[in-house]
């Protein structure tokens, strides 16, 4: 039935009404169907519960991961060691407020990490190697030589 449409008097009045039941607005009919309303409520609650459970899946995953790998997965732990090592090497070898150029041969991950660590020391990263005071690149080495197996090579420009 469309909203606002007058209901069938017989349907509204039910059996035994003799067709003399008063006409009631459609909204009242909705209200007066307790069984349908109850079913609708149950369906709404169950469906909303499903939405919440699906929505919380990420929270469950995060919980599981924090329990299974409290210190992070192996790859992340290695990356953290490498990042801390590169950060230390940069601070030790390049003076604050200088300008550097970082080799494009290194991955974009390290291009961005070098910019991040340089910014911490107030070092300016330039895209034109001719404008840089220092040229930097990362090379693989042994973990014994440098934690995480990455060594920062720093060359004074010119």
């Amino acid at each position, binding site marked *: 039935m469309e909203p606002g449409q007058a209901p069938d008097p017989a349907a509204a009045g039910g059996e035994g009404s003799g067709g003399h039941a008063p006409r009631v607005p459609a909204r009242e009919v909705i209200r007066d169907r307790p069984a349908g*309303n109850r079913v609708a409520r149950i369906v709404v609650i169950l469906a909303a519960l499903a939405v919440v459970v699906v929505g919380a899946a*990420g929270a469950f995953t995060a919980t599981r991961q924090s329990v299974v790998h409290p210190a*992070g997965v192996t790859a992340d732990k290695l990356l953290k060691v490498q990042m801390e090592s590169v950060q230390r090497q940069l601070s030790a070898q390049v003076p604050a407020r200088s300008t550097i150029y970082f080799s494009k041969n290194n991955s974009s991950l390290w291009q961005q990490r070098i910019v991040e660590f340089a910014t911490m020391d107030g070092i300016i*990263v330039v895209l034109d190697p001719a404008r840089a005071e220092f040229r930097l690149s990362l090379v693989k080495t042994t973990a014994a030589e440098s934690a995480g197996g990455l060594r920062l090579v720093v060359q004074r420009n010119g």
Partner: protein
Amino acid sequence: MLALLAAVVMILAAGLPTGYVVLRDLRLALLVAPLITALSAAVSVMLMLIVGGRLLWWLGPLLLVQWAVAPVLLRRTAGAARPPHRSWADVLWLTVPLLPPFLLVIAPPVQWDANSIWFLHAAYFTHGAPLAREYLGLPSIDFSHPDYPPLASSTIGAVWGVLPGYKLYVAQIVSATLNFSAIAMLGYAVRVVTGRAPTMVSRLAAAGVALAAWGEAPFVVAGGLSDALWATAFVGAALLLLLRPDPLRRPVLALLLLGVAALTKNEGLIMAVALALIATVRLWRQLRRAAILWLPVAGGVVWSVLARHFGAKSDVTSDSNIGGLLRLDPTVYHKLRPTLTAIWTQVGPMVAVSVAVAVLGGIFLRRQRRAQGLGSDLWLWLVFLAYLFFLTLTYVTSTSNLAWYLGTSAFRVALPFALLAAASAVCWAAVAASGGRARGKRPLPPWSEPGPGATGEGPAGSSTPAAEAAGPDSGTDEWPGGRAEPGTRGVQEAVPGLR
């Protein structure tokens, strides 16, 4: 470990007095305090860039002023109403469910975007105005979206200013604490708007929506990213502004959350504009009072102007092919399908069930919903559509490789869809679980419990007899074409036939 604890204590303590002024309860004030600290830090960064100096030179006095003014404000508003749902049980329901997934904060701080965007920005904010201005326009950091608003980074930068050494773990826990605070406030917003449902249902609803903040990207909340920060703050603001009977009666928390959204990410700013617009339309009878909704937007716009002034490039505007869209370029329109497919993959089934719930609720429970003082669900879906439009437009007009762009971001930026869908569903569930009954004889607005010695509220406060008689459906709780029925009606009268 000590540094991490110190960082958390700092951002809690700094915002606590103002948090107490806003929420009049120490427990709730502790939950909202990090967001107030963050807003203060964001304002300080903007002042630093405009006037000069260093971040802490601005933030320190700003916090001192807040600490000094808080007792005065508390005295002057001593009789004002206190917010509802501030019991220990409520606060525990808002926080304890969030703790297990939050433990991921101890994972290594190596998330790509956290480092490339938020920690990097924080680093240049610590160096003072001249260097920060230079970094904003530096071509070598274009990859890091230097135009992104400063809220999260400025807070990290402020803590780094006090705890030197640029420890990434410190940055991660500061970011995660902000996220935790925003998620808890989202839960609180759900608790407020469903406050007339049975207590346990309302608390479960709050916890359920809050847990959805982890979405499809479990590492986002505690990994140093800000997607959950803006999304939860935004949806919390939307709930308070669009579902409460008179959102302008106690607007501070909603404005604060809207400000957090506008000052955290570009999409947050755009959606803050959309929400302010939608809320203004909802409150069109109180246009002058509704003007305050635009204050958080103004904060975001000031940042946007500043960032561009100092040369910060935005990928959204500089890499956008709006011209192609207007020329009906097929390469633009061919991106529509993969974009919508990617969004559907993230949240489609969840949203579909929520829509079904909303339709069922709209057919069977609409009047019960009104009787509970809950605003129309359509407002939330209008916000949903606005975000869908904006997000789709961003993807289809981007000149970046679409597969890469969607693959690296869709799972994060779809979060507001999930939160809005979950919020809509739990509100209907709260109505359904109430069986049409609201606690109390008369459906008062959820934020109108008078405190001891309450003296009443402002001009539109429902503590006036007329407004109280009109109930929560009066005036503001309308949808164009579906006006709420005026007049004095208690719940039993409004929904005859229901106990």
